[in-house]
């Protein structure tokens, strides 16, 4: 029950922060920070893939309706929800995943997080910018936007986790 509440709250928060703040944060050089892939990463590990695709689609479509992108975010979010189990399986640690663990910065080691989440962000951003520009002769600009935006999104997402997610080790030591 508590999990449902947390994920619903996160859904709403990610939707509005992305649509009202990060979609307007225009840094220049074509950088576009997108943080909602973090929500898809933090969904429960054993969640049914249909459920995660529907939730991601709804999140993306919610962002689309507010920022007038009509299906771009929905398409990109569904893509990473679809690829999520495959990526998890590919980077599976030697002793497997814990049933109830969350894929956040405290539970997983940093190398795993960087490779899995970095790959998810890369796929997401590349898909998003390719669809947005949608011209073969703009491929240089698409790649430039992708490779400048991915590190920024990654840094912001790591900061969000450090600031807003409680470290379980801290709680135990107290």
């Amino acid at each position, binding site marked *: 029950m508590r999990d449902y509440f947390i994920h619903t709250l996160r859904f709403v928060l990610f939707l*509005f922060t992305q649509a*009202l703040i990060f*979609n*307007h944060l*225009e840094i220049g050089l*074509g950088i*576009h920070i997108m943080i909602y892939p973090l929500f898809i990463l933090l969904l429960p590990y054993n969640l049914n*893939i*249909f459920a995660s*695709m529907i939730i991601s*689609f709804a999140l*993306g*479509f919610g962002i*689309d*309706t*507010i*920022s*007038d*992108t*009509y*299906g*771009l975010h*929905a*398409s990109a979010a*569904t*893509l990473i929800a*679809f690829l999520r189990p495959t990526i998890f399986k590919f980077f599976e640690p030697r002793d497997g995943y814990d049933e109830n663990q969350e894929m956040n910065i405290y539970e997983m080691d940093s190398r795993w997080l960087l490779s899995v989440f970095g790959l998810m962000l890369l796929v997401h951003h590349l898909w998003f910018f390719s*669809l*947005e*520009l*949608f011209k073969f002769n*703009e491929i240089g*600009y698409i790649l430039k936007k992708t490779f400048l935006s991915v590190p920024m999104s990654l840094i912001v997402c790591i900061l969000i986790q450090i600031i807003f997610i409680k470290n379980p080790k801290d709680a135990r030591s107290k």
Partner: protein
Amino acid sequence: MRDLFAFFRKFRVFLFFVALQVFALSTYFTYLSFPRSQYLTSASEINGKILKVSYEVTKHFNLSQNNTLLQQENIALRKQLPQSFMALQSGNVLINDTLHKQRYEYIPATVIKSTFNHRNNYFTLNIGSVEGVERDMGVFTDNGIVGIIHNVSAHFSVVKSVLTEAINIDVMVESTGAFGMLKWDGKDARIGSITGISNDIKVKKWSKVVTRGGSGIFPRGLPVGKISNLKPVEGKPLWDISLLYSEDYRKIQRVYVAKNIMKDEQLKLESLIPIDKE
């Protein structure tokens, strides 16, 4: 038949994924050419209200700049007031003559949402069909044109801005009258381009570009920008012209919507032209 079911079961995740993608992408690509509904865009009631709340928070960010702009506009208007003129001949009276007839009406509006770093940027205005906004009306500010109304609901409307790929507003170089189409390459919010000007026409750098008013969306002579760079297109007798917009679309707030009273008349007349058969 059983094979078919087995196929569906085996690929059900992928098929579901494809179905969602088809839905999302068809909405995306059809919206660019024509808005099917206003309910899932920022012109809808709920999203309009959310954006209004967000605008209430951020509207004071550029306050001092906007005040200066309004003041400058006030000065320009004040200059035209009767008080600012000295009578050269006593006994002059103002006659409401019949030489000029009102052609455009203007509706003031506020931009409550705008972006400039997407490939196609749409702005949301706080007025809608209740205030008399209709599809295909022109939107402009004191400094330059902004775009064309794309989608209208009761209290909000969405503008297809000049920062869109297929905006195609007809503009002309003010000094020579050579005209072309306004385009945007999706990179820099300050720079647009003009296509369709033949390169045997002499065009000077930094000459002023204004609207041509041909399609009746904008009045003739609204500022658009200045030519910042020009070179001939390879293999075609055309200029490739870069244009520095005179309006900064990154901090746009107050706009006017131009309503052409005689648009129906013009369209009716133009529809009588026979279509070329080749």
